[in-house]
């Protein structure tokens, strides 16, 4: 009797720890993914590199092209683009290893950290975008 009770307590403690780990990881995942896949070029603070790499922080591009963002992250982009009235022309490599959930996490990190895109992206929205990639 005592043993089973102890086991139940232990199991629930364990489960609690696992779940807590899960949630904290989730919360940080966007930041980790951003650091690993985006920050080298766009920098930790999202300001980009003057004239060469466009900013993400305060960039009008993210709301003007909201429906293309998931494909842009996965496949990269080539050729000139205009961000905040300035032309940029530096190829961005694709990130084909990122899952739909990863891309959603990154976009929501941009939303919470840099205030654009103006509203959060749902996993369904990202999935729908990725099905329509050019």
């Amino acid at each position, binding site marked *: 009797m005592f043993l089973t009770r102890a086991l139940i307590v232990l199991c629930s403690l364990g489960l609690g720890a696992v779940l807590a780990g899960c949630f904290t990881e989730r919360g940080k995942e966007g930041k980790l993914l951003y650091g690993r896949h985006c920050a*080298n*070029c*766009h*920098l930790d603070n999202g*300001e*980009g*590199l*003057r*004239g*060469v*790499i466009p900013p993400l922080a305060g960039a009008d591009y993210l709301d003007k092209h909201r429906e293309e963002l998931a494909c842009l992250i996965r496949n990269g982009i080539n050729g000139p683009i205009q961000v905040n009235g300035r032309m940029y022309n*530096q*190829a*961005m*490599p694709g990130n084909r290893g990122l899952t739909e959930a990863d891309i959603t996490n990154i976009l929501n990190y941009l939303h919470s950290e840099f205030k654009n895109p103006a509203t959060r992206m749902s996993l369904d929205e990202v999935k729908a975008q990725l099905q329509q990639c050019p």
Partner: protein
Amino acid sequence: MTKSIVYVGLLSLALAGCQAKPEEAKKLPILGSREPKVTMVDGTPKVDTVYHSIPDFAFFNQDSQRVTQETVAGKIYVADFFFTSCPSICPKMKSQMLRVYEKYKDNPNVILLSHSIDPTHDTVAVLKEYAERLGVDSKKWHFLTGDKDTILDMAQKHYMTSALEDKNAPGGFAHSGAFLLVDGQRHIRGHYDGTMAPDVDKLMKDIDLLLQEEKK
């Protein structure tokens, strides 16, 4: 009681003594190997120390101008190795180098040399566009191109930083993000991680020290 106060007082005096460093101690070291060189002066042997120094070089900058040891003669310079299409650490390095540029852009005694390790792609025209996009002056900040093997050799052997062609690395080249501080005699006086802001803060402090030293 009074005794212990005296002891504490003495101890703090002793500690204060430890902290106050004489001005001479603030000289930057000369990095790299050194060899004794013996010459005979009036029949007696005289020993000089020969320090590692950057050999003569000749590259082209974004204006198609030749940049050689003459360009940096008597000035101090910061060297790094990068390539314009680099998807890994280069933008971080360049944003940090921009800080150095902004601080010293009006000081004619400080020069910046960014060597492309992918000179086949980074032609004069490509470097010109890159520099113009950054909005920097080509008399202060030279983006260099030239013979690939010579540039890679300069990085590896003389600036003592790594730069290699590597098909598995992002963009095709593996290289360190080092910034090297070189004095008016072409001795390397400091080595910094050009992707880390605190290290670049240290570089700018060291540039100020070196400028003081070169004035003497």
